[in-house]
């Protein structure tokens, strides 16, 4: 048990609001739509930041995910996300697995690590390709939805357990 009373808390990199991560209006983009109606509070090394809800967040260019694969993508923000009117977020690609292997329980999907300790995980998404390939930053998420599955997650911190099915 982690007793926050036993010692004074210092630092901490966590997201304090549900981000409402979703596909953006423009192609190849994401958006945040926090249920609180205002945006996301998150902290990095104990310093708190706020990101006002925004549409059309450009997605990080990453390697291709082949057809019939599943993969987790971690979405993070840093201290300058609000000021960065183009990107605002960073995406890290996890280890892709054949969807059949994930479903059968042969391999779980592990959450990737943030790219740096100065990046706060605020969410993620899972791509299951089925008849398409996916390249983050190039392929429109709508194309995956049409032939495959996109699942969004909002995170306080990176989950301890991988996704097993």
């Amino acid at each position, binding site marked *: 048990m982690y*007793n*926050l*009373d*036993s*010692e*004074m*808390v*210092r*630092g*901490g*990199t*966590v*997201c*304090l*609001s*549900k*981000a*409402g991560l979703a596909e953006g209006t423009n192609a190849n983009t994401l958006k945040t739509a926090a*249920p*609180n*109606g205002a945006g996301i509070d998150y902290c990095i*090394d*104990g310093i708190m930041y706020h990101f006002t809800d925004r549409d059309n967040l450009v997605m990080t260019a990453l390697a291709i995910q082949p057809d019939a694969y599943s993969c987790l993508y971690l979405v993070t923000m840093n201290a300058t996300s609000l000021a960065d009117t183009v990107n605002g977020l960073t995406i890290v690609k996890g280890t892709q697995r054949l969807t059949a292997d994930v479903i059968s329980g042969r391999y779980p999907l592990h959450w990737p*690590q*943030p790219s740096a*300790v100065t990046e706060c995980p605020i969410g993620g998404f899972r791509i299951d390709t089925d008849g398409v390939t996916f390249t983050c930053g190039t392929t429109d998420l709508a194309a995956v939805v049409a032939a495959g599955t996109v699942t969004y*997650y*909002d*995170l*306080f*911190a*990176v*989950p*301890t*357990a991988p996704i097993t099915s």
Partner: protein
Amino acid sequence: MTMNMSSEMPRGGTLCLSHPELTIGGTASKIKTAAPNGLGVDYAINGYIYNVLDTVGDRTVTAAAVQAELTSCIYLVTLNTAGTLATVKGTAVLTADHTAGKKSLQWPQPAANTCPIGAIKVVTAADNDFTAGTDDWDDAGSAFTWYDFMAIPTEPITA
């Protein structure tokens, strides 16, 4: 002493991130949230964040065994990943023992994969028992104290 949360990357986490402002429902045997942020409660379970809106309104509490007269008891309030509310009845103690310092009120344990968001302390008077799920949360024969949580307090409630 300090605990440095930056020395390792946090993983997982189950805690409430908004003040839920638990209060009696429009139907008095139920409860509701009235978060001061005006919209609802953000909470995390195993690292994933969820949200329930105040507009859900009245929420049914878990039916529990009767709490006898002249006792004190804590009812823990939790949410699961689907936003379903549940209450967990703690161990009732004689209020006289509690106020005398003989017995403390321990916070109940939540069920697995649920997030504690608050609690209610119920103190029954003479000739008046209380049954969660049946009786009103403003029952004239009892006293009610409402708590909102980030996490379950470390210490029990002492006299």
